[in-house]
């Protein structure tokens, strides 16, 4: 039985592996991976998650659409969401946060940053 269920929504397997590696430092974490927003929603409906990390630019359904759908669904709206993206402009950040993302991390990937943000949202001291 895992203490924390985390969903990574990212189309790049390399990125998924990198994010998963960073998160595996959290004791009791279980990671589920999804290729895009649609796959992410499908996995969300199958079990309970404590945190979602999503990319923005993905095929089929992008990360912002996913954030918006999750926030407007009574079943998932309390799940913290972190957006991880190459888009570093302030307006991109504000847009994601306005849609309901809890945090916004820009690439290149820094495992320590991902870990800190995840721990904070999972309320791990």
């Amino acid at each position: 039985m895992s203490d924390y269920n985390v969903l990574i929504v990212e189309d790049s397997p390399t990125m998924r592996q990198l994010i998963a590696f960073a998160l595996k430092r959290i004791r009791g974490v279980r990671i589920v991976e999804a290729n895009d927003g649609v796959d992410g929603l499908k996995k969300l409906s199958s079990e309970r998650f404590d945190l979602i990390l999503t990319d923005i630019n993905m095929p089929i359904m992008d990360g912002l659409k996913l954030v918006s759908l999750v926030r407007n669904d009574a079943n998932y709206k309390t799940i913290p969401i972190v957006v991880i993206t190459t888009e570093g402009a302030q307006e991109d950040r504000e847009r994601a946060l306005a849609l309901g993302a809890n945090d916004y991390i820009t690439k290149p990937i820094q495992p320590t940053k991902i870990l800190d943000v995840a721990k904070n949202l999972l309320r791990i001291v």
Partner: protein
Amino acid sequence: MQKDDERLVHSRGEEFLQVFKKGAEFTQELLRENERLRFRLLELEKSQVSGEPAPAAELKKLNERIADLEQEKQEILDRIKHVEEENQDFAARYLEIEDENNNLANLYIASYQLHSTLDFKEVLQIITEIIINLIGAEEFAIMLLDEKSDELQAVSTEGIERSEIPSFRLGKGIIGSVAQSGENHFASDFDSYERDFSAPMVCIPLKIKEHVIGVLAIYKLLMQKKEFAAVDYELFTLLAGHAATAIFSSRLYSDSERKLSTIQGFIDLLTK
């Protein structure tokens, strides 16, 4: 090795915390003892004032004991200070190791992914992902050397149209020179750099041992990426080797697959 270092740092950190804790408890104890003796001395002095003669020997002994305890306390305080300093050193070292560990993991995952497929297009896609996600480049081109014509041509680009990138002669200009010498090129000033397809801000040869098969030319970094970190240079070195091997193997594999299917076609024709 890395993990052993981490474990060592952890256990040393724990040890020092224990010493620190014991030192603090002992100091408290000494302070209480000191207080008790001061009180006793005061009582003796009072009794002296009130006419009761205090035994001089006992008074002297108590004074000596106080001096000893004061000295001992000072020694412990010095030791605590020393342990605190050492603790800070270990904490800093721990953070350094943590960073190194993260960087090594990035490098491991990048190389693992590079060799996870023999499909040429997939290899190019993985190289592109590594450059965007780990290095933080926005515009770049992967160019391969045509050994027959001695020309470098873009086979994959990001943020730029492939048709925009001209071909470059081996040995000519920055890109041609990097391909010929096998040495990395970095623009002297990234802040003032303006995009020039013949003079990228970073140009890395893709080489197998000393044999260059192409180059990676970076023209623009992501807006939040202001400069290169030490790990980026390690990634460049890794890319130069692993990406070249992965590209070379996947091309070789596609060629042999194609040849095999042609031969199979002939065999089928002859044996019909």
